[in-house]
């Protein structure tokens, strides 16, 4: 009897409790969370792609503002020094008390999320979504490119492993990082198939990477194909509602500078590629604010240009200068007067593009000194690519590849904020340090390898 009991009862207990212990994932998920089973599907894969693009669209503008402040594109006009301005004037360490991880983590977030989406599209797409995979590779590579341009040498590429946990990595030097980015753009090109749109996107990114590496010949080979394919622009859309460039704080906090820190360009000249308006400010700051309105003028559906033939031609101009020909000035003037290339401002009445009129872009005269050639090309880049996140990479290249003194490239001297509220001097920083949180939490990371250009 006893034994019979045990034979019956014990298995019964296990079965009973096993049944009670069964957990239905569908029912237990918290509100707002997608069912992982749905995510792990073709629909989920495409939705993940959209998620990456949505994130990229929302977070890229803050990177643009960061680099703008760090260079001569924007000036902090707030009554209280922003974290970026604090970094610029070395009033904060940037690795300690004030977090500078906003753009850093945002760009990594895009990179990590792209990996998840790519893996899911590979699993469920069966070749049908290669063009989306190509785009995601490009988005990932651009995010890493932005990291390499804004931050110091020594950037880790930790991975959120697909269906695993995560892996921390050491910091990679800028050169190592650029080489990795180069390969990722290769993947984007190979998956682009017959899509010219994604092929050119990756190609321009790859060319930009090569330029950063100083591999001009390689860059030229890529760009010849790009410019031969006609006019192209890859625009990152974002909603005007709540976006970085239309918010109240942006309008009042940031001003379009004039010769920022002595070395900066005068962005307040009448140039259709940089648009600003005077904002009467009485509360936030004692300064007058000239707010950048380039994107607001685009209407309800503005977009930032990530890559275009304008940039390709600008790179070509630089490459022809490097090759010793004068073709570069023709390229620059063609961009200004051809009429093909715009800055995507709808309803523009000031810029009679292609006409070279008083209000338009007149043809440039060739300077007499070679160093001024470089200045002119980089100035044209600064205006054509104003507030698109290119300026920081350009300034670093001027130091790294054109051997300019950092003090002649980056703003120097006094940095004023909010009238007399805060007045300090620019610091020596030309790259942003990796946030201290990386060092705190990543056991394989021990800080920047180099903070030079």
């Amino acid at each position, binding site marked *: 009897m*006893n034994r019979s009991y045990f034979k019956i*009862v014990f298995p019964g*207990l*296990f079965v*009973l*409790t*096993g049944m*009670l*212990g069964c*957990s239905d*994932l569908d029912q*237990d*998920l*918290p*509100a*707002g*969370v*997608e069912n*992982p089973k749905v995510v792990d599907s073709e629909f*989920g894969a495409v*939705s*993940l792609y*959209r*998620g990456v*693009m*949505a*994130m990229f*669209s*929302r977070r890229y503008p803050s990177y643009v503002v960061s680099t703008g402040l760090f260079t001569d594109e924007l000036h902090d006009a707030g009554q209280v020094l922003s974290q970026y301005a604090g970094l610029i004037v070395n009033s904060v360490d940037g690795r300690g008390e004030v977090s500078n*991880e906003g753009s850093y*983590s*945002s760009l*990594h*977030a895009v990179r*990590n999320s792209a990996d*998840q989406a790519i893996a899911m599209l590979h699993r469920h797409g069966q070749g049908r979504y290669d063009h989306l995979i190509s785009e995601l590779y490009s988005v990932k590579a651009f995010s890493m490119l932005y990291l390499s341009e804004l931050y110091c040498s020594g*950037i880790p*590429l*930790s*991975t*959120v492993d697909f269906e*695993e*946990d*995560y892996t*921390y*990595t050491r910091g990679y030097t800028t050169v190592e990082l650029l080489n990795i980015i180069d390969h990722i753009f290769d993947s984007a090109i190979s998956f682009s198939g017959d899509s010219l749109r994604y092929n050119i996107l990756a190609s321009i990114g790859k060319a930009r990477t090569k330029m950063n590496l100083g591999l001009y010949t390689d860059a030229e080979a890529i760009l010849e194909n790009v410019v031969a394919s006609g006019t192209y622009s890859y625009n990152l*859309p*974002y*909603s005007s*509602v*709540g*976006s970085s460039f239309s918010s109240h704080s942006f309008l009042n906090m940031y001003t379009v500078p004039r010769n920022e820190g002595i070395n900066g360009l005068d962005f307040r000249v009448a140039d259709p590629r940089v648009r600003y308006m005077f904002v009467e400010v009485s509360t936030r700051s004692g300064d007058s604010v000239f707010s950048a309105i380039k994107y607001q003028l685009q209407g309800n559906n503005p977009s930032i240009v990530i890559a275009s033939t304008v940039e390709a031609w600008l790179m070509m101009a630089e490459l022809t200068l490097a090759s010793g020909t004068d073709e570069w000035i023709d390229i620059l003037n063609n961009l200004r007067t051809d009429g093909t290339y715009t800055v995507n401002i709808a309803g523009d009445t000031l810029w009679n593009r292609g006409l070279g009129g008083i209000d338009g872009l007149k043809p440039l005269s060739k300077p007499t000194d070679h160093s001024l050639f470089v200045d002119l090309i980089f100035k044209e880049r600064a205006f054509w690519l104003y507030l698109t996140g290119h300026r920081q990479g350009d300034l670093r290249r001027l130091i790294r590849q054109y051997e300019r003194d950092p003090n002649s490239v980056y703003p120097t001297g006094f940095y004023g904020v909010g009238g007399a509220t805060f007045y300090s001097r620019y610091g020596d920083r030309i790259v942003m340090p990796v*946030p201290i*949180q*990386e060092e*705190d*939490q*990543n*056991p394989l*990371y021990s800080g920047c390898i180099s903070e030079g250009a």
Partner: protein
Amino acid sequence: MNRTVLVWGGVALCCISPSVKLLSQAYPTVIQDISLKSDSPGQNKQKEKLAKRISISVQDSTLKYVLYEIARLGNLKVVYDNTDSFVRKRISISVDSIPIQDVLKTALKGLDLEASLTPDNATVIVSRRDTVRSEVNQTKGNITGTVIDSATGSPVVGATIALSGINKVTVSGKDGKFSIAGIPIGSYRLIVRLLGYKTQQYPVSVEANKSATVTVKLATTATALAEVVTTVTGQQRKLEIGNSIASINVDSIIGIAPVSNLTDILENRVPGLTVQRAGGRPGDPARIRLRGSSSINNSNDVIIVVDGVRVESELNRFSAASQGGVGSIMSASPIDQIDINSIEKIDIFKGPSAAAMYGSDAANGVIVITTKRGKAGPSKWTFSTDQGLSYIPGEFPEGTFRFGTLMGMIPGRCNVTEVGAAVLCDLDSVISYQALNDPYFNILGKGRGQQYSATVSGGSSNARFSITGSQSYDIGVVKLSHYLSDRFVAMYGKDIPSWMERPDRYKTMSLSNVFSLDVNKSLAVDITTKLYKSTQKRTSLGNGGIAHFMTQFHSDTLTASTDRFNESSARNSDKFTTSISGRWTRLEWLPIQATIGLDRTEDTDKTYLPRGIRISTTDSAGKYAIGRAHRNSITYTANSAIPLFSNRIITTVGINGTSNTSQGFNARTTSLPPGVDEPTTGFQDFSRSEDSRSINGWFLEPRLNFNSSLFASPGFRLDQNGLQGGKAGLMRLPKLNLSWLVSEQDGIALPEVITLLRLRMAAGSAGVQPGIQDRLRLYRSDTTAGVPSQYLSNFMLTTIGNSKLKPERSTEYEWGGDLDLFDGRLGIEFTQYNKVRRDAIVNIPIAPSLSISGSASVFTNIGVIKNYGNEISVRGSVIETEAITFGGTLGFYNNLNKVTKLSTNSNKFSLNQSTTSRTVSRVVAGYPLWGVWARPIVGYNDADNSGSISTEEVILGDSTVYLGQPEPKGTINISSYLTVLSGRVSLSIDGGFTYGMSQTAQVMSNLNSPFNTYANSEQASPLSQAIAASMNRTGYGVVQQVDTWRINSMSVRYMIPQNIVSKLNSRSASVSLQGSNVLMKSKYMGLDPNVNSRIYDNSQVADEGAIPLPRSWSIRFTIGN
């Protein structure tokens, strides 16, 4: 020499002992041929056993071995005297398929031995023939009797009855009866002993061929070890358990102490249990910790089981009305939503070694509550009522300053902001000031409270009931000040709304029923239901509590104060708990007990700002928030305590599990039109939350009884948790405890003053579960504004998850002893424990290179936290006479809490958490959990020569330093009682000393001192000077290590004379005057060192201006039949 035999596996194993116990049962039936003389059902079973055919072939072996084989093959209990030489006689036997009784006869043949059955036919005894025969010598006499409880008259089971001078011992049976036969004629002393009772001696004369009859009345002693405690594996005598388990008889507390909830009952009565209260407003919750905190991120709350049902126990963080910053309300502790008048007993299992069988959620300890059961007989009823008042004792610290003379306005003093404005303020003097000591500005008055409770119980032998209904209503001490009242009337020309005058109200109602039904002889069922309903109303005093009102002068601060009284929050809580328990004993060897229960809570929050009318000129629109939450918990338990080997091993097997679900909903609007109470549209924010979790476990717990003096119970529980993602696995939770009753051990003679000496040890593991989805990688859709329309249908990775995440595990070792002296009049209990929490879960921030779209943190098993301490309890009854009794209890508890490890790379990781703006709580290896850290003030520099020190002019040290721990290092609890006039008047006092806790006196930071001390003043307050001299000043606040003496309660009770009581048709009635928080002594600079407005966090202790605990006095009247 008497001998005893220990039965193990059906075979006697040992031993020699000075007293006969197991064989001392009278067995008058001598069965020389193993035949049976009656046909009772039990005998039939035995007959079946003895008739079982076995085969055995043993050559030249000891009789002991042969008996062992017979027992094993026949699945029998066979006992013999292991010390007698016959067991070593060598015999040979070879039989094939013959009945056991014939095998025994064959084996014993020629050895002058015989076999007999015990009266219960449970055991075959092998003994020398002459021994047995001598006991039935007809020239001797017998003693029979009954042992009963002197107070209740109920039979006492298991008492040991011994005769002095001869070695005759027996044990009282189920009905308290006993019998000793074969006693040589003469006079003896009958000595009757049982743990928990005073030993009694009776003279008795034995005459030839007669039976003397004795009724033994045993009176209880103070020892607690005789009590039975209820665990998930069933009921067990405390003396058999190797843990220190605290038990509280609730009625004994309610009768003499001003307790209004369970927290009151637990506070200061259990060494190892600490209580920190959120504040002194009605319904404020309390944080209860057993043997220190061990979880960094997870709950440190104990789990609570009521009548077998696990009820909500975590402090309720859900506060719907706080959504959107409209306001919030602190909900009462779940433990206080149990009507104390319905409780019979509370057992507190302090650590994982005691709570191991409760499984992977019980590492913080378990509080088991058993409600009152009805007893057969005429209905009994009791009724009680309390009427009382409360107030904040003493004066508030004068930490603020009023400067100079205000010019050109209402005559008065300036405030700090006016110091620099020379036009307004003539800086001719400075005085310290405290608005809450000024009757015109004070917002604290006298509170009121009342409580009613009635219990009715009774029933027949087959159906019994107990019903308790209670109601309480408290009005808090917060009131509208005269200043605010005058201002309101002057500004708005309206009468003050009644709710605004006394905004803090707390009303509770409860009804508890227990129905016990004996369906038949083998099936009994208990059905319990508990309904609880509370309404909690209060106004928001702002984040700083009354700190805001402490700093009020006559400026803008007061304008804002008015508006704070305009905010009104209410929380309605409804709770329903029910259980059905059944005990089925049809098969004696397979008793089954099962319980299934449900605990359901529904909360509704509403907050209005302002409420009803809009009186603020700055608020353009009213705000309103509403939230609802439902929480359900289903518990099931089934076990069977299988008796083996004559009850020497009780093996309990069973299952136990809990399933919890919760749902929450919040909404708010900030555009509530004036006068509109219940908007149906216009909500701006909605949020919804859901959670669920389940745990299912299997347990096995053999309880071994070695000669009734040594008990061991190893155990093992396997838990399946509901964690999603990764490999689930089963959590293995072992335990072992040993309890050695040295004073009951044969062969050990202790001094007579020692009534009881027990040594014990226990070890075990229990767990704490992470969140059910903490392992998962989760995705959400981002459809907020700003997402481009073409990407709206998206999924974003929001949590990385950790597929390797596992529950936290606590392992605890404890050892100690219990010593009762002088017939239990002095009892000492000592326990030392060492509790280590491994795999403590930390939601560690991930490096930004691992960023995704959402949470930048991952739950990780990373911490090791140790709690090590001692508990000593001394209980004494100093005077025990008919007229006067005097005694008390002294308890001591200390605990060393330390984070011993945070990861394998501990230098790389420390966890900061700044839950307030004033101090930093930090988890650092080598320091107590959530220690308080801050940068110290190292100097001042009045750079602008303003005469006052601004915050910027305070010089802070370069780095943070450790300042103290958030939980006490230890407590001393004292309670005493005195009864005079034969118990008619009694006085009881209890209180204690708490030391070593660091409290952040944030309210002091909110005052103007020390930062804004008027530097040149010679009139700075002593308080300000004291603060300036303190080494614990920090850049964030005043952190102080706090030692506190407090008399928690005092009561004087008068039993109304019987001649009056009988006219009320009752048997007893009493009236008592009771006071709580009667006295508090501390050097704490803030308001109350034991209030903690951060009660919901594991991390922080800070008063932040929470209202101190009020002092209350009440009159209680109790009557019953």
